[in-house]
């Protein structure tokens, strides 16, 4: 900047960049925020990171007659602001989303679910995924852009956009990007990918349908039961209940302070999930008061406890966030299954 001779060309380049960004808006390629123009050379850089045929279809929405190829995924990852080395994570994420139950319908659902993306393993440090303070918040490029790449694929590859096929009644800001890393270093328990049979030194991406985030405050007690009853109470809010033949699920993103207090009291991860499952639900009378008792046996007494999930496995437990206060988060969902996939090494 101090070398005055470069001022004019720089100004010209910036004007051209702005025109390119405006061009992307005119094409209808954005989520409302500016995107990086998907120039062919940028897309090729991304494709060079993976050992895949660019024309291979990785994810289709047959009822819309639309599909996402490896090349189209790369173009959308460019637009999302990813770096080329993020692309193997983006591909693993898209293939995991493809394998989720109801991956055909929920992008269009009136409920407006987003996809929570959880990163585990060494790729977190290698690519700078945040799993600590402000874990759900803006500020970290890897989280922001990898999560955004999924949304741009949904909009551009599948044509599922607001005002047409995305029929969300209200939606959630989590649809922009909803990508976190697990705070494995401060978790007292085995990380999610190890729980699911992957090695600690492997990197994975886990995806889950989720409706947003609900904070759980509990700073007044060290007792595991108090902390967990607050979390279970937030999991069980009446307005989120949706009678479903597949059964409800819930994703609990426990802050390290809560997790460590509970683990120091001798509780295993399995015991935590079993306890949460026991208390995940409402009394029949409360469901009747909310007119949410459609599937209930009319003879069931009001004081009977109705569990929302079929088993502790319907609760996904992750540790993330900062160890600076007693805050955890519940991500409500009614689809309990999640999918974990290994992230392949980059092609060097």
């Amino acid at each position, binding site marked *: 900047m101090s070398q005055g001779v470069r001022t004019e060309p720089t100004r010209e380049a910036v004007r051209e960049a702005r025109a390119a960004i405006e061009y992307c808006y005119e094409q209808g390629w954005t989520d409302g925020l500016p995107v990086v123009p998907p120039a062919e050379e940028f897309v090729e850089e991304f494709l060079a990171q993976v050992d895949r045929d660019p024309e291979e279809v990785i994810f289709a929405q047959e*009822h*819309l*007659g639309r599909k996402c190829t490896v090349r189209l995924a790369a173009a959308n990852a460019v637009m999302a602001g990813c770096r080329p080395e993020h692309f193997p994570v983006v591909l693993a994420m898209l293939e995991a989303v493809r394998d989720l139950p109801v991956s055909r319908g929920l992008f*269009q659902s009136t409920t407006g679910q987003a996809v929570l993306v959880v990163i585990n393993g060494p790729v977190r440090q290698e690519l700078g995924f945040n799993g600590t303070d402000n874990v759900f918040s803006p500020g970290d490029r890897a989280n922001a852009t990898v999560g955004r790449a999924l949304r741009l694929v949904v909009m551009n590859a599948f*044509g599922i956009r607001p*005002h*047409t*096929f995305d*029929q969300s009644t209200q939606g959630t800001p989590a649809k922009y990007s909803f990508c976190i890393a697990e705070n494995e270093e401060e978790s007292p328990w085995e990380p999610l990918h190890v729980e699911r049979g992957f090695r600690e030194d492997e990197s994975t991406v886990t995806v889950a349908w989720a409706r947003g985030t609900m904070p759980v405050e509990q700073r007044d007690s060290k007792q595991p039961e108090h902390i967990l009853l607050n979390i279970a109470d937030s999991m069980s809010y009446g307005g989120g209940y949706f009678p479903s033949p597949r059964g409800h699920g819930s994703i609990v993103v426990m802050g390290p302070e809560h997790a460590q207090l509970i683990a120091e009291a001798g509780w295993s991860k399995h015991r935590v999930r079993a306890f949460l499952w026991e208390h995940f639900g409402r009394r029949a009378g409360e469901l009747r008061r909310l007119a949410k008792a459609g599937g209930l046996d009319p003879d069931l007494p009001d004081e009977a406890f109705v569990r929302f999930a079929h088993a502790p496995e319907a609760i996904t437990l992750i540790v993330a966030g900062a160890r600076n206060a007693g805050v955890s988060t519940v991500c409500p969902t009614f689809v309990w299954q999640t999918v974990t996939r290994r992230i392949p090494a980059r092609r060097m």
Partner: protein
Amino acid sequence: MADGILFEERGIPAAAVITDAFRRTADAMARTQGLEGYPYVAIPHPISSLSPEELRVRAEQALPEVVRLLQEEVAG
């Protein structure tokens, strides 16, 4: 909408029924399937909060239109 159009493509008469809150999506789906203007029956929204009796009234009101669509040739 997609199901109705796919049925018709296979020679099975179909009548798509939506509530009027979904007109925009229904029209977009018809365009996507290459049948812009594909006719459907739009009944008043909402229906999920109706009693079975109220729902029956809606169905009876929609019936003549449903029958008409089932008998109509689909262009395209």
